[in-house]
């Protein structure tokens, strides 16, 4: 296979400059025996997503504890790239995460990072397949802080606190904020479970943000004699219908 001959493209993400330095030193040492190139580095998750939608990396080394967006959330977003990279986590001390990695055979490096371990991880990465998104989700009890949306080859992050509702439509899910509407390819059931703190199901195909509920209205449809309830959300003109099964919500939230 000719692909193997290409140098391994490696990307480094860590919020601490000396930690990135250390990795770069060690990568330079590895390069003597394993053809590789450093294709970039980033000091936080957002910057990493930005750069990685421009440049392809085979392997991304990600620190877990970072401000703004932690390493696990970054990995979840990177997994949605067209060609997701192999992810190797780095951590100084986090027994919870380390156990989770062990159980799911996800590669990780303990800081201080050793040359031998890094070399092994990179060698393995050549033949590894990316970890599935569901598995990454299991790694953390925390929900993501953003949804990532692919738009013309770029990744757009939509903070969860801006999302008013999520509605399943055919293959996709519509993500609605006050200003915009996006489409993502995820399962509504998984989203409901992950963001249970923010959203509540009002219909088989729709989750709304509890905090954004402005009020409830009874709507009578023209061709149907029976009226039903609908939710009005802050800042949105349209009404979202509540299914019969979920009508208890009206009492609970009004």
């Amino acid at each position, binding site marked *: 296979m000719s692909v193997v001959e290409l140098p391994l493209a490696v990307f480094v993400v860590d919020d601490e400059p000396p930690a990135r*330095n250390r990795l770069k030193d060690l990568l330079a040492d590895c390069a003597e025996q394993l053809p590789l190139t450093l294709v970039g580095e980033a000091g936080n998750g957002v910057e990493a997503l930005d750069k990685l939608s421009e440049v392809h990396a085979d392997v991304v080394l990600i620190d877990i*504890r970072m401000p703004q967006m932690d390493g696990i959330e970054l990995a979840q977003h990177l997994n949605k790239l067209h060609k997701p990279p192999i992810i190797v986590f780095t951590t100084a001390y986090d027994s919870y995460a380390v156990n989770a990695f062990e159980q799911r055979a996800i590669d990780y490096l303990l800081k*201080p990072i050793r040359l031998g371990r890094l070399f092994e991880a990179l060698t393995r990465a050549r033949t590894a397949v990316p970890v599935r998104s569901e598995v990454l989700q299991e790694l953390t009890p925390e929900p993501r802080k953003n949804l990532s949306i692919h738009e013309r080859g770029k990744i757009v992050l939509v903070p969860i606190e801006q999302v008013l509702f999520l509605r399943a439509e055919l293959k996709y899910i519509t993500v609605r904020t006050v200003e915009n509407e996006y489409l993502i390819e995820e399962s509504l059931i998984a989203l409901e479970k992950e963001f249970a703190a923010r959203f509540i199901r009002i219909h088989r195909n729709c989750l709304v943000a509890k905090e954004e509920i402005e009020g409830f209205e009874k709507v009578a449809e023209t061709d149907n004699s029976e009226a039903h309830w609908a939710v009005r959300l802050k800042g949105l003109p349209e009404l979202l219908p509540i299914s019969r099964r979920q009508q208890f919500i009206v009492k609970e939230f009004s």
Partner: protein
Amino acid sequence: MPKERSINQNNISDALPNFRNLGVVLRIVLIVNGLAIFVAMTQAASIQDLGQRLLFGSAYLQPVLISCLLILYILKDILRRLDYRQGWGAVLLLVAAVSGTIALLGGDLFESSIGYSAFQLWQHIVVSVTVAVITLGYFRFRAHALSPAVASARLQALQARIRPHFLFNTINAVLGIVRSDPKRAEGALEDMADLFRMAMADNRELVTLKREVELSRQYLALEQLRLGDRLAINWQTEEMPSDALIPPLMLQPLLENAVYHGIEPMHEGGEITIKLYRSGKDMHLDVYNPYQTQGNKHSGNEMALMNIRERLLLQFDVEASYSVDSGKDYYRVHIIIPYIREEY
């Protein structure tokens, strides 16, 4: 500072109480008066009689109690230098002497109605000494009851004070600069050695505030190595009494918390303000850091701070105060401990 034997940990509890501590003084007053009420109750025939007995009893009891407390307050350092048994002997002798003297001097006053006999003099001395034995016994019991707490607090302290997170990240950072800036790496390793020497030392003796500040600066230099510009420090130490004595590693864990919970989670970083000053008989330590509330990630924080609170209680009883003031975007810990200076 009291001489303490460091080989056997259990010896820490076998020491006389600190007679200058407000908590100790209050406890003595309560115990002695409690006993007086109890004795009066057992003898009284009616409620009026009880009142009478308490009144007459107090006329003798309070002067003895106050004189004893006063002398103990003055002699505290000398008593502390004695070994534990000698200490007991000295206190009991003192109580006997004071009660005897007051009975002799004021004897006519208290007992004029009945007249005064040698028997009554001895009676007063024996009762007083018995009360003193009960009181000292109580303090011994209390110290023993608390000593497992001391041991576990120390153990916990070792685990909680310097986070593994900090240790491994710092080693990694030092390795990260060792090729490009070997001089700085050397300095960082030296700072680390000092910090861990302190953390692993027998931490029962008080240290000067100056020393603790020095250590804290070394600690912060290490954090700055990792965090760079994200960590800004504002030291307000102009009014700091350098000679004040404080429990070791009291300030450093507060700063470690501030960095871990306040600065690290913030992309742009922030400034930690440390204000150390004396006001009258109190020493104030104030640590302020920005803080972003996110979810319920407060548990680790509480753990380390509880540890400090517990140590303050063990060391100063009611004379120390610890308070937290937290708002939407900041967290502030304020500690007040009695101002003690190094004497000899």
